[in-house]
């Protein structure tokens, strides 16, 4: 760790002996990990190995069969909304309303979480390359642009933990590189991430990755 990051307050997100059963099939059991500020958890595994299920358990939408999750030492099931203000989730579905404009969508995303003070909505759109599309109905954006809008949603709240399920879907190669820089920026600011991707991640070497392969356990 560099000197700058060690002075930052570190937060921890810890999983203890998680198990997930789907249709009488054990997807994983006794799974545990700890990530701290600046680290990214990367889930690997075949289709159907439980990556999405695990991410949904991590954000609290789905309950694990057994096991516990701790945010700074407190169980996330007890924290509820207090945990959710520290996390942002990007799932398979973008979570944007097609009848609203990107700006309106971002305003809602910011209102639902804890607003980040140092970035404006237009600036967040600019950072994902949607400058000039503020007032176009989201319906008229391409699939890749809609995905970019969903990523912009992560930027407007003060969430430390980003939970990303295949964040690069429908992005072009340049877009993927650009988003990787954004994710690195988040980690360097002391954030954390838990993600799955079929794309080989091109983070810089100083980013600490915690890899878990669900197929080889």
């Amino acid at each position, binding site marked *: 760790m560099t000197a700058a990051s060690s002075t930052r307050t570190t937060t921890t997100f810890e999983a203890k002996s998680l198990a997930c059963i789907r249709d009488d099939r054990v997807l994983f059991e006794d799974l545990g990990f700890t990530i701290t500020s600046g680290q990214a958890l990367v889930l690997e595994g075949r289709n159907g190995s439980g990556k999405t299920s695990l991410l949904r358990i991590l954000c609290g939408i789905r309950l694990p069969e057994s096991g516990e999750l701790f945010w700074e030492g407190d169980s996330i099931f007890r924290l509820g909304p207090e945990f959710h203000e520290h996390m942002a989730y990007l799932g398979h579905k973008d*979570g944007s309303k097609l009848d609203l404009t990107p700006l309106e969508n971002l305003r809602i995303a910011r*209102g*639902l979480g804890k607003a980040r003070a140092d970035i404006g909505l237009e600036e967040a759109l600019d950072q994902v390359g949607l400058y000039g599309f503020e007032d176009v109905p989201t319906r008229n954006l391409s699939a890749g642009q809609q995905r970019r809008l969903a990523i912009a949603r992560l930027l407007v709240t003060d969430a430390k933990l980003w939970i990303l399920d295949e964040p690069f879907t429908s992005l072009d190669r340049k877009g993927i590189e650009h988003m990787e820089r954004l994710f690195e920026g988040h980690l360097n600011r002391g954030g954390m991430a838990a993600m799955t991707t079929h794309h080989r991640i091109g983070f810089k070497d100083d980013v600490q990755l915690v890899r878990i392969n669900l197929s080889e356990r």
Partner: protein
Amino acid sequence: MSTLSLTSAFSMLLKRDLVLAYRRRAEMVNPMLFFVLVTAMFPLGIGNDPKLIEAVGPGVIWVAALLAALLSLDSMFRSDFDDGSLEQFMLSAHPVSILVLAKVLAHWLVTGLPLFIVAPLLAVLLNIPASAIPTLMLTLVLGTPVLSLIGSVGVALTVGLRRGGVILSLLVLPLYVPVLIFATDAVKTAIVGIPTTAQLSILSAMLVGSLVLAPVATAASLRISLS
């Protein structure tokens, strides 16, 4: 979370749903048209016996309102479920029940309030005396929010099913019975000219009860539907 950001989240979500409804306004008039058409069918079917029409009038208006409310329920969470917005609500920094309340209120403003506005016209159509129309309006303004609130629990439970429509009506219609009984009884009593305080008080109690309990149950049901 502070109270201020909670109120602003509530009003933001309310505004969002009203804007969305406005942008698809063609779909939103459907429940009201359904209400008007169903009610208008009855005099045609029953024939020109004014006494008979007057006797069935309150019941017809209320059953039509019930069916119109049921018809519109599915739209409460459907599109939010399909595009992933619902997941984001569940993961918001605010209590889900408050967000649910904002959504139900928006839904009632868009689908319930129009019924209330056209009801006097339909009352005239069904030969309900003018003296009973204020009571009819009161029962609608107290009763239709109860329909939306109770319905929100049912629709939250069935939103994950692909064909939840029939199950939804089986779940929700029996729960609508008390509202139907007391509301129609109030209007019938008002036609005779007897005070209706008792029925209206019970309707108010139902409104307050469902206002407090339904959002919590809906939030829990949504959690079940999404996991």
